């Protein structure tokens, strides 16, 4: 085992660097930049039960060291993913992570079952998308909602389930515990913080959908805090994300208790960001002579 490899919810990852759902589509746009097999894992664009066109434009607004998005889960539906995208993605030697959002627990369960059956390594249950009206963040805003969705998925599949938590809650640890109790195998966090920008010239929100999700470096301190709190509260492995752009950022998440990390917005800015994070991590481990496992959760509180 190389010093970069980790076991995450029982799944071997060749390294702890993955790409975050919604920032990497189904990978096709990035093959020109690097070999996708170098990644620890790929979380594909969020899938829904049926095809979705997403929200009206504009869908992106820049903010200080962050961005708001209101894509609204534009995707071809989970069946089309299984048929059209999955066979292509399979050629890469990396952990494939589906990301699902249902309008009802039943939709979640059906998708989890089908994707598990299709051989997805890990199914990320997105109960935190702030950009759709039904489902999504609605479930992620309460322990009860999380329990409901995760329980339904757990019954439907033996596949590994990872719950993607919303940061827009009072007590993230409570949400994590609910997911753990309902049978989740792992947690991922954070999804985006709900935000808004107003164009003072037009006096309208910049986003066509008015509100959107904040991501990027701006949110990193909130994400690191939540990863730490969740790591203290549950025994599940954590996929940490939120503003990771460099290996140093990734190390912060690992120290806080994440077993693996995801690069999101940084890839939107620089297609090579995940590789830079990976190579930086590699260099760091070489210099300290450690393996990733030595760093996970190694923060010493003051």
């Amino acid at each position: 085992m190389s010093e970069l490899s980790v076991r995450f919810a029982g799944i071997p990852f060749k390294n702890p660097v993955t790409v975050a759902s919604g920032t990497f589509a189904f990978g096709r746009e990035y093959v020109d930049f690097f070999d996708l097999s170098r990644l620890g894992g790929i979380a594909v664009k969020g899938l829904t039960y049926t095809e979705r066109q997403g929200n009206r434009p504009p869908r992106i607004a820049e903010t200080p060291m962050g961005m708001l998005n209101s894509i609204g889960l534009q995707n071809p539906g989970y069946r089309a993913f299984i048929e059209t995208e999955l066979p292509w993605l399979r050629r890469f030697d990396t952990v494939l992570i589906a990301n699902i959002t249902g309008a009802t627990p039943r939709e979640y369960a059906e998708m989890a079952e089908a994707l598990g059956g299709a051989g997805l390594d890990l199914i990320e249950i997105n109960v935190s998308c702030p950009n759709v009206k039904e489902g999504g963040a609605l479930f992620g805003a309460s322990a009860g909602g999380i329990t409901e969705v995760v329980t339904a998925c757990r019954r439907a599949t033996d596949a590994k389930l990872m719950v993607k938590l919303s940061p827009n809650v009072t007590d993230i640890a409570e949400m994590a515990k609910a997911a753990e109790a309902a049978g989740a195998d792992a947690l991922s966090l954070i999804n985006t913080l709900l935000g808004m920008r107003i164009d003072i010239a037009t006096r309208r929100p910049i986003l066509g959908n008015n509100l959107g999700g904040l991501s990027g470096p701006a949110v990193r301190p909130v994400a690191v805090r939540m990863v730490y709190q969740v790591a203290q509260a549950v025994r599940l492995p954590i996929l940490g994300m939120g503003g990771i752009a460099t290996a140093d950022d990734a190390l912060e998440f690992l120290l806080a208790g994440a077993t693996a990390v995801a690069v999101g917005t940084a890839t939107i800015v620089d297609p090579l960001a995940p590789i830079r994070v990976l190579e930086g991590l590699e260099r760091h481990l070489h210099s300290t002579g450690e393996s990733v496992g030595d760093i996970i959760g190694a923060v010493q509180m003051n």
Partner: protein
Amino acid sequence: MPPILEQGTIRRAERLCHNVIDLRIESPRIAREVQPGQFVHIKCADDLLLRRPISVCDVEDGQLRLIVEVAGAGTRWLYGRRAGEVLDLLGPLGDRGFPTPDARGGPVLLLGGGCGVAPLLLAAKCSPVAVDMVMGFTEKCRVIMEQDFKSCCRSLTVCTDDGSYGTAGFVSQAALRLLEQEDYQAVFSCGSMAMLKSVVQAVERADIPCYLSLDERMGCGLGACLGCAVKLRGEGGAEHYGHVCKQGPVFELREVVWDV
């Protein structure tokens, strides 16, 4: 031609008028591939997270020529660049630029407003048929690139909104007159949303293809983040969201659903 990440050194930075700069950037790998209508995505100041899309106006000797007008913080930063500085470029982007006109067809009409004239230059230079260019600006002191277009277009009409230079009035008005006189095989246009709208109205009556370069706020520029949505009408007439950075930035007028 897959997109390329390239560090381009600015070789010349010339102010064309207040708040408009003409940059020549040594970027041989991108320059070799670029097609008319394509753009590069540029990392600007350190405190600006996202890249900014800028059309390629021309290519020569491995250099990209870009015309940038200040619209906000990123373009203001670009306006402040000087020869010798290095820009982080991603390009060429856009699967569809302006199409290559049919060499056996009629001439092509180019309609550009303000900085929107920029991408039309490469289209004009690459055209196997004659091109007529109409360019519009608010006033005399905003007129740019007149010589550039003169040297590669069959005719050039410069309009100013206030009549302070060339023909008084809007690009669409001058376009209407030309469309009556000549059998164009296509119209290529780029400019502000207001200008495009009036061009659309002018051209819709004429039954010829009209290709528009569209503007949308962008994230990745690669078709991955799905940020730069534009509503399109598909084959069967069904509406769906396409993406300006990947499927465009040039669209045929009739595919676009004009919501706004």
